[in-house]
């Protein structure tokens, strides 16, 4: 990592990038969000190394893969942690008959899982990748479902016995002093169906490998089969399904509005901002409660208190959106409804919640952060160094708990955030405790944002309450427009890549899940720690398997 180079990096503009990549760029393939350079598959590492070390692009945000009729394509979406609006896309086409591309894993550790996913779903092989296995689908799956030649009618899973390699030696080692332990997929503390393969030496964790994919629901494919205008919006609610729905909807809304050049009325932006922050509070309350559950070990007080407080938020959201979890409240170009009538009642209810919040936060301080045993358990455990976090593409509270000052709401402003007063919270502890502190303080910041939004909404002139801009009933963005846009969801950077193919449905819809990348850093956090810390660290990452597996 070369943070010292960022001063020079800031001066590098598009021409500078062009010069830096030089002859290695075959052609340009600009996306709506960033300049794009097409390079040869055997020069991935050299280009990415240069971009990272000399141009300061230290964040491999997302790796998209897709198949065209004549080629496969991997797209590396690069950003910088300091300024996420500085973006560049590196496009790597590979021929259909031999889809082999050099791996980016030595440059960015986050490419490890991302490329495995691309191999799994699209079928691109990454040369020299340390662990080229399927990640979401079972080991015995046949074919690559997002590839164009995929035959849905043929049997997809073969028996394990048919699949196993007869020449492979049995890995079982009877002399070993370690014990292999399957934590999950049915375990009380895995926050869903996560399977962690752990190797233990006594109580010490020697090696862990998260095994994901149990909740893979083809969300990307489902979005590819829905129309931009209506049918995609209900689905983002179901990625991160623990009440972060509106934040997810915003990710899609932002990407699609960028793709189709839609304007959003200011009034709708304020409502969006308010509802999104309500969701963030609900999501962080749940994170807090389940983390306490992981450390305390029972469905005890804190979990229930957190749920009680989250319930109030959900009631407000229900009044606003009509649903408690699966909101479907955003529409392209605005939101579906204005605030519920009578508005005063809604404002009062929300204000009551905000007024009570400081007392509740103080209660959590008493229960959690002030508790000595809790500190004993959380301070100095699950250490995630900032350099490591950046390598793995960690974002959101996980990154901010490692002292990385990154928040897309501030750095890549959208909605109404730039007009409001609030702070980005960071903690330098890099441990489980810091991540809890970050979430708790973010709840307070969200409350601050909501309060300002309420003030704005209350005084908004009645004849200017435009909730949706005029959006055509059928949206057909021009073919081959591509964009990658991200928002700050509850768990971090939730990005959407969309490629339009000229129809009213996306040609490729890729979700960059923050949980997916945060979870990939788990082994770095827990190796050498004890099992209880493994559980606590997992809880502090606040993963939702629906979003990890999509």
């Amino acid at each position: 990592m070369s943070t010292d180079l960022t001063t020079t990096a800031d001066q590098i503009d598009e021409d500078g990038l062009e010069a830096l990549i030089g002859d290695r760029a075959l052609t340009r393939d600009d996306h709506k969000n960033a300049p794009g350079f097409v390079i040869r598959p055997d020069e991935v590492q050299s280009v990415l190394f240069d971009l990272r070390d000399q141009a300061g692009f230290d964040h491999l945000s997302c790796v998209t893969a897709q198949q065209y009729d004549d080629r496969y394509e991997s797209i590396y979406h690069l950003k910088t942690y300091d300024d996420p609006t500085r973006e560049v896309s590196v496009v790597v086409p590979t021929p259909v008959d031999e889809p082999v591309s050099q791996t980016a894993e030595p440059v960015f550790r986050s490419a490890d899982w991302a490329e495995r996913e691309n191999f799994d779903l699209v079928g691109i092989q990454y040369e020299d990748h340390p662990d080229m296995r399927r990640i979401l689908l079972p080991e015995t799956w046949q074919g690559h479902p997002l590839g164009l030649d995929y035959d849905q009618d043929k049997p997809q899973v073969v028996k394990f016995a048919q699949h196993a390699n007869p020449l492979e030696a049995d890995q079982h080692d009877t002399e070993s002093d370690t014990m292999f332990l399957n934590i999950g997929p049915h375990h009380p503390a895995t926050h869903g169906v996560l399977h962690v393969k752990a190797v233990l030496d006594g109580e010490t964790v020697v090696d862990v490998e998260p095994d994901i994919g149990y909740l893979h629901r083809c969300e990307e494919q489902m979005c590819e089969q829905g129309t931009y205008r209506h049918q995609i919006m209900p689905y983002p609610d179901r990625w991160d399904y623990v009440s972060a729905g509106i934040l997810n909807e915003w990710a899609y809304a932002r990407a699609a509005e960028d793709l189709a050049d839609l304007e959003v009325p200011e009034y709708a932006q304020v409502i969006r901002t308010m509802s999104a922050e309500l969701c963030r509070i609900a999501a962080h309350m749940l994170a807090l409660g389940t983390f306490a559950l992981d450390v305390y070990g029972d469905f005890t007080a804190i979990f229930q208190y957190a749920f009680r407080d989250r319930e109030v938020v959900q009631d407000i959201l229900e009044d606003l959106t009509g649903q408690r979890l699966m909101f479907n409240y955003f529409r392209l170009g605005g939101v579906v409804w204005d605030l519920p009538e009578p508005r005063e009642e809604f404002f009062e209810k929300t204000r009551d919640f905000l007024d009570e919040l400081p007392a509740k936060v103080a209660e959590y301080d008493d229960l959690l952060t002030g508790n000595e045993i809790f500190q004993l358990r959380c301070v100095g455990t699950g250490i995630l160094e900032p350099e490591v976090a950046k390598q793995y593409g960690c974002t959101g509270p996980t990154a901010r708990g490692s002292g990385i000052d990154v928040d897309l709401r501030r750095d890549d402003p959208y909605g109404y955030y730039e007009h409001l007063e609030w702070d980005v919270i960071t903690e330098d502890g890099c441990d489980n405790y810091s991540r809890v502190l970050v979430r708790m303080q973010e709840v307070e910041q969200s409350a601050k944002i909501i309060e300002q939004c309420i003030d704005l909404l209350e005084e908004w002139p009645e004849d200017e309450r435009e909730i949706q801009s005029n959006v055509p009933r059928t949206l057909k963005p021009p073919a081959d427009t591509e964009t990658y846009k991200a928002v700050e969801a509850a768990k971090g950077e939730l990005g959407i890549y969309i490629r339009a193919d000229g129809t009213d449905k996306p040609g490729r819809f890729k979700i960059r899940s923050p949980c997916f990348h945060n979870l990939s850093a788990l082994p770095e956090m827990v190796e050498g720690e004890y099992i209880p810390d493994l559980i606590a660290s997992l809880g502090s990452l606040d993963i939702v398997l629906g979003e990890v597996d999509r």
Partner: protein
Amino acid sequence: MIGLLKSMATTMKHALDGNTFTVEYPDVAPDVSPRFRGVHKFSQERCIWCRQCENVCPNDTIQIVTDDKRNGEQYNLHIGQCVYCRLCEEVCPVDAILLTQNFEFTGDTKADLVFNKEQLKAVPWYKDIDPLESREPDRGAWIGEGEGAVDYQ
């Protein structure tokens, strides 16, 4: 040690104040928001069989069967498959399909949750809330209209 005692004091305070936040559900009917989206209600009298709801539905929940003269014969809706996104209500030009606030529906098998047009019509209003009125005040539902044909032209 002070932190531990503070934690204990906090939980004991909650134990002694006697407040509960859970409700005794079937005995006490929960309040739902007027905007809440529950099971659908369908009016054959209003429907013009334009199939917009069927087309907009993101996961093929609605199935409409018409004869060769575009007269409606069947209107089936799988309330177990529905994601309650309310897009059908949103696109309906004549407010023939609405989402009531009802949420208490059960069935022994999947097939029990497939409602035909008569069953959909029989879905009761919840606590006499006008669903459309509460969501989009300029569109009122047909909650007070009673039975009979509606002249929407």
